[in-house]
């Protein structure tokens, strides 16, 4: 179905890795996984199949890519001709919809191909039935959850009936339930005899669906595996390749092996004296009678990393917005701990950019006070890069007056402090670059640098690892751990069981706006969390 014949593609004047000397064939009805580190060329391979390279992305292509008998580079009709055979699902649900309502979206591709309206309606009805999404039809897309959006994206390529489906990191923004749905969709395509190509970092949910896997490194196909070979990789080998767990049971396995998280210093339930206490948090939408979020009491251990988990729409993001004090509708207070976090006081003093605050029974923080006590690193870090240089970004977040009062606060001193924070985060060389010219990981570290510069005690992360490969995920987990080690209280919203177990000390589980569990990651806690966040994978 798809042939690569000595294919090399290099992006024009761009740092992106291309693909080099790719040879291979993907057979009709086969499900192929593209795996490897970020920037290994996975995405480029998907673009070569759907024709975006070279038709949308400029670059030089040598060799031939043939899809369903069409040479993608020279096919008459270009992208549109390829589009009849190849359907594409992308990572970001925010930017792959062209219309405002679900029905219109499902019709979009068919309308472009000038199918008769009645036939399109029949197709929509049958795809909606196949995908169990009749209830979504006619609904506004903006009101859907990330998982529902991804389902709509899959359905909307399905209506046009392409033979080949290409998915580029489709699970990045999804929770366990939505991943299970996505798995069912791919299984359906497989049964329908479609050729499916998936580029992914999270692999466990594809267990049993993969016929073959291509492992890429630096734009080259380095290793080809059958589905069984991929499944059978030893943990050591898998880590050597930088791949995330390929089977669900390996997720818990990684935890008990790496015991960084299972910390005996704090037991199964958080200690009240050393925790921030969340009291009477609630959030009620306008015109709603019942609060969407209702948390009478919860504990966030100080100087620890707490993972806030739950399904899409469970109220996690509302909870952290309340915590940050961003919304006027948020009610409730946050009481600082009565005792300092154990062993953190000395670490706090040693870290530049931290205000060592005297810990005494402080009064509970109301919404406005929390705005200055917490700092959130947003999921989309592009929304918080404002200035013309990385250094300015850090200075912007730094308070004019230092809380401790015993440090000089002149512009020179501020800059020195900012540079030392950047050095700690391995950003010293890029201090004078424009933030938008950095890579995704670097941008995220700039946001973290801003959080450190703010000198605030609570740092909140909203989904920091969507779309990260294993190495980068471990890096981010390490950053969170070091923040906690320096005395910061870290709260991280995540769907990702692998990340939660690597980064957090404990979990606050939220479902339908209520706290349903609060426990530490001892061995039992880890298993409980992994079971909760991992999609059911049944063959």
């Amino acid at each position: 179905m798809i042939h690569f014949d000595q294919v090399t593609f290099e992006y024009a004047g761009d740092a992106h890795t291309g693909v080099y000397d790719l040879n291979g064939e993907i057979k009709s009805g086969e499900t192929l996984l593209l795996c490897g580190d970020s920037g290994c060329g996975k995405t480029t391979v998907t673009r070569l199949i759907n024709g975006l390279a070279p038709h949308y992305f400029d670059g030089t292509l040598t060799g031939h890519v043939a899809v369903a008998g069409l040479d993608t580079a020279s096919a008459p009709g270009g992208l549109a001709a390829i589009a009849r055979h190849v359907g594409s699902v992308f990572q970001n649900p925010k930017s792959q919809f062209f219309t405002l309502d679900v029905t219109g979206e499902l019709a979009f591709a068919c309308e472009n191909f000038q199918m008769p309206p009645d036939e399109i309606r029949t197709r929509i009805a049958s795809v909606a039935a196949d995908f169990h999404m009749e209830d979504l039809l006619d609904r506004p897309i903006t009101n859907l959850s990330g998982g529902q959006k991804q389902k709509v994206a899959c359905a909307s390529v399905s209506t046009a009936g392409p033979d080949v489906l290409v998915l580029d990191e489709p699970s990045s923004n999804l929770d366990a339930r939505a991943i299970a749905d996505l798995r069912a969709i791919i299984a359906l395509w497989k049964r329908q005899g479609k050729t499916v190509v998936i580029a992914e970092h999270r692999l466990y949910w594809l267990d049993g669906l993969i016929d073959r896997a291509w492992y890429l490194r630096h734009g080259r196909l380095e290793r080809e595996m059958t589905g069984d070979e991929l499944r059978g990789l030893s943990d050591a080998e898998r880590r050597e390749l930088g791949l995330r767990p390929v089977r669900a049971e390996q997720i818990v396995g990684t935890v008990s092996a790496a015991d960084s998280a299972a910390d005996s210093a704090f037991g199964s339930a958080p200690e009240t004296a050393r925790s921030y206490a969340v009291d009477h948090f609630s959030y009620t939408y306008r015109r709603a009678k019942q609060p969407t979020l209702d948390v009478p009491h919860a504990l966030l251990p100080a100087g620890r990393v707490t993972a806030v988990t739950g399904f899409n729409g469970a109220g996690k993001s509302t909870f952290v917005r309340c915590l940050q004090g961003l919304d006027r509708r948020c009610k409730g207070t946050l009481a600082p701990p009565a005792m300092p976090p154990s062993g953190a006081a000395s670490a706090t003093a040693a870290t530049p950019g931290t205000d060592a605050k005297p810990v005494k029974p402080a009064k509970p923080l109301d919404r406005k006070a929390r705005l200055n006590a917490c700092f959130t690193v947003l999921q989309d870090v592009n929304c918080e890069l404002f200035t013309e240089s990385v250094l300015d970004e850090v200075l912007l977040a730094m308070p004019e007056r230092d809380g401790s009062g015993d440090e000089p606060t002149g512009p020179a001193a501020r800059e020195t402090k900012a540079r030392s924070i950047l050095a700690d985060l391995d950003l010293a060389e890029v201090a004078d670059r424009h933030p938008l010219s950095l890579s995704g990981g670097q941008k995220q570290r700039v946001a973290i640098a801003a959080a450190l510069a703010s000198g605030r005690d609570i740092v909140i992360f909203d989904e920091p690892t969507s779309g990260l490969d294993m190495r980068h995920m471990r890096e981010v987990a390490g950053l969170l751990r070091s923040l906690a080690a320096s005395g910061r209280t870290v709260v991280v919203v995540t769907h990702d069981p692998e990340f939660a177990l690597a980064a957090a000390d404990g979990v606050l589980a939220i479902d339908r706006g209520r706290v349903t569990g609060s426990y530490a990651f001892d061995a039992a806690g880890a298993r409980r969390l992994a079971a909760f966040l991992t999609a059911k994978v049944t063959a």
Partner: protein
Amino acid sequence: MNFSTASYRGILRFDPRTKILFTLTVGAFCLTMLGGSAPAASAVRGALTVVSFLLLAVSGRPRAALVFLVWLGVAYAAAEWLLPHVGGFLGWFIYATLGMTTQTLPSAIASYWLLFTTTAGELIAALQRARVPQAVTIPLAVMFRFFPTVVGEARQINDAMRMRGVHLGGGKASEMFEYRVVPMVTNSVKIADELSQAALTRGLGAAPTRTSIARIGFGWQDWLLAAGCAACFAALALPW
């Protein structure tokens, strides 16, 4: 301002083209005061206002129609009984407010009716039937699609700025506007770029025209309303 996302399924379904014609007619007479103070023009304005209310009421928004009606009623009542007794600046102020209310309200009602009974898809389909080229309809579709996205982005940027103490009254007000533009533009460009990729891989531009599942077309009610609009303009030619 946003289009409806579910197509209207009530009894009085009009083609989007008819709705646009009606809204423009109301705008011409009530908003821009076509026909000036001629008695025929006043009669036309009255009739258009009444029809706007009726359309809104029978199209499933009786409560909204009632609110508009009370609002307009209060404005006229105030003009009749309150205005003659108030002079000076206050009188002028009330006069101006009432004038603007009575002048804009009918158009507001008609536009509201147009928006909530029409989906973006229907509008685009109608424009395509009217032989408006894709070079116009596609950017228009993208524009409708973009509003909610841009609002969402702006909210996140706002959050990030407030965390940094950059907000009105936060002592960094001058940076507020400067800093907001950068992420707004870069994010919009990025979204637009990804959106184009998604649209192209789904065959946008495959053919010079597209089909549409939007059920549009003219029925008796369209001819009736269009004839009514024509009559309004014809009334201008009346000798009195």
